[in-house]
């Protein structure tokens, strides 16, 4: 009988919380023409010496990346107000900014506080609570987190959609030249900063998947010379092996309630099929029954359906399966001869997929109602799309001079960026869900 057993990652594999020096170069590959112009004025510094951190720079980058905003170039700013009564609105109207954000950074306790205000340039009116300026605090070593929270507040105030700039991503990093490579499982801020290695191995690591509470990652590791699925708590590093059956153990995907994993097994006969595995009871239920390759399950937000990739009709295409009645599968993708790795959008209305687009593997979204497809990315070998928890942006891996790097594209396809991390090859980014409570440190 297969027992789940807990393994602490002390031997054979190393676990370390080292913050790698992530020197990121951000390359804007596409920018939106009708994004809302906004001025994020450099924050004032209310103490002696130079300001410890450029909050406005991170805020502007976040907002631009969302595809909804076009932050004004700093060089265009003729004035640097740091509070509302210093803003000369006619100047900013002349610069064609619809909104302006002014603020300052100040020491507070062991760390810093940022306070800021958002104004409508046309009306001169302050947005949000009329009384106090908004205030965000953080430790000295968390200034990027502070800046992302400022961006979250601005984004939500102006769009009505919760900002996702404070969220994290997980990805796989590979270094070295084949056939000898070193693989790492890395967690970072969504923009690739603050990288932390969770697991490091000489055997492949793949398919990371966040638990719905954002506390754990399921992933595939070949460390025992065969594929096995592990679940690891991000904060403590504690982990369990949850599936190490004969053949493939792959493509783990958490159900929305976090109690079940959908996964791919090939068992002894080599038939690649999707199953569900209830984590507590270890009850395994088969979800696909045809002799082709069935893999890459993704749950609908109500947990009643699975979207899978199957080549039952010849090439890989996306199908929808009712979890309670899995024998019937309905085809969802119809454009192009290769559609793989479906991921359901947070609102449940779209699927992100990898599609073969005139000889190139690209990221596309399929509208589940109309079944229409829109290709979003422009690379040659783009892979692993993953939605931001607010649905505004997708993160994926693309090739940059023969190396895998992180990239984002807004789900309307209007804004795209590439993060050219200097070390190794980045694969399979997956965007974490919103954390239940605002991240306090």
């Amino acid at each position, binding site marked *: 009988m297969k027992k789940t057993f807990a393994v602490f990652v002390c031997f054979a594999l190393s676990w370390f919380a080292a913050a790698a020096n992530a020197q990121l170069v951000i390359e804007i590959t596409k920018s939106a023409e009708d994004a809302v112009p906004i001025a994020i004025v450099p924050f004032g510094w209310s103490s002696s010496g130079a300001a410890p951190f450029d909050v406005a720079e991170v805020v502007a980058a976040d907002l631009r990346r969302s595809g909804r905003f076009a932050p004004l170039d700093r060089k265009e700013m003729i004035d640097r107000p740091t509070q509302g009564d210093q803003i000369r609105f006619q100047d900013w109207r002349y610069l064609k900014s619809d909104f302006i954000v002014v603020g300052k950074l100040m020491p507070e306790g062991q760390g810093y506080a940022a306070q800021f205000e958002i104004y409508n340039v046309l009306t001169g009116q302050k947005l949000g609570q009329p009384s106090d300026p908004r205030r965000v605090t953080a430790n000295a070593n968390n200034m990027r987190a502070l800046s992302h929270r400022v961006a979250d507040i601005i984004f939500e105030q102006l769009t009505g959609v919760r900002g996702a700039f404070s969220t994290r991503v997980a990805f796989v990093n590979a270094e070295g030249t084949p056939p000898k490579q070193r693989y790492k499982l890395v967690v970072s801020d969504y923009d690739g900063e603050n990288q932390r290695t969770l697991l490091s191995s000489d055997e492949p690591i793949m398919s990371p998947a966040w638990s719905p509470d954002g506390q754990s990652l399921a992933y595939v590791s070949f460390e025992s010379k065969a*594929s096995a699925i592990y679940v690891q708590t991000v904060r403590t590093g504690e982990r369990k092996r949850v599936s190490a059956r004969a053949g493939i153990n792959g493509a783990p995907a958490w159900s929305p309630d976090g109690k079940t994993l959908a996964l791919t097994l090939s068992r002894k006969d*080599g038939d690649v099929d999707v199953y569900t595995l209830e984590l507590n009871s270890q009850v395994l239920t088969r979800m696909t029954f045809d002799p082709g390759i069935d893999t890459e399950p993704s749950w609908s937000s109500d947990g009643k359906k699975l979207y899978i990739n199957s080549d039952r009709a010849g090439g890989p295409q996306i199908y929808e399966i009712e979890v309670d009645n899995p024998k019937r599968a309905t085809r969802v993708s119809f454009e192009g001869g290769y559609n793989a790795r479906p991921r359901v959008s947070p609102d449940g209305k779209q699927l992100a997929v990898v599609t073969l687009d005139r000889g190139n593997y690209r990221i596309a979204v399929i509208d589940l109602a109309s079944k229409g497809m829109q290709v979003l990315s422009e690379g040659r070998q783009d892979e692993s799309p993953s939605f931001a928890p607010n649905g505004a942006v997708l993160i994926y891996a693309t090739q940059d001079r023969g190396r895998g790097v992180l990239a984002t594209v807004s789900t309307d396809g209007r804004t795209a960026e590439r993060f050219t991390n200097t070390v190794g090859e980045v694969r399979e980014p997956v965007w974490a869900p919103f954390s239940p409570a605002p991240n306090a440190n």
Partner: protein
Amino acid sequence: MRVTQLMLIAVSGLMLAACGNKPLPEAQNTSEAVGPSTSTQGADSSGVGSSALSAEQQAMEAAKAAGVIVYFDYDRAEIKPEFVPVVAAHAKFLNGSPQRKVRLEGHSDERGSREYNIGLGERRAQAVRRALMLQGVTENQITTVSYGEERPAVQGSDESAYGKNRRVELVYGR
């Protein structure tokens, strides 16, 4: 005796080259594992030194000479005619050495999605497994693993690299 053995190895090397098989950097190492089991070796060395090659050794040499990698076409898992003799040589060796086990490592090229490529690698490993079993190799002599595109043999994003990466490696345990 030594000389004939060396000649045999040299001849196998020539045959390998003549077969038009690509040089296999990693495969050289894995093919070292294609050897008599330690017990057999012990029995031999306790005797009069290296006498004539045992039947097992001969089958092993033949399998080694035939090659330890089967290559595939894009998105396909059929064993191409030129690799039928490779599989046959390994089947012969395994039939004569029922205690030996082979591990079939399936791989794909880097194109497309990773988990689908795991499926493709598995399908290729299963194709070789079935071919071995049709030739009498027993189920418990074979294990399969698919690495998909995760462990390429060579780096590169052109057809030549893709062709070398779409493969099943036959690896013998010790």
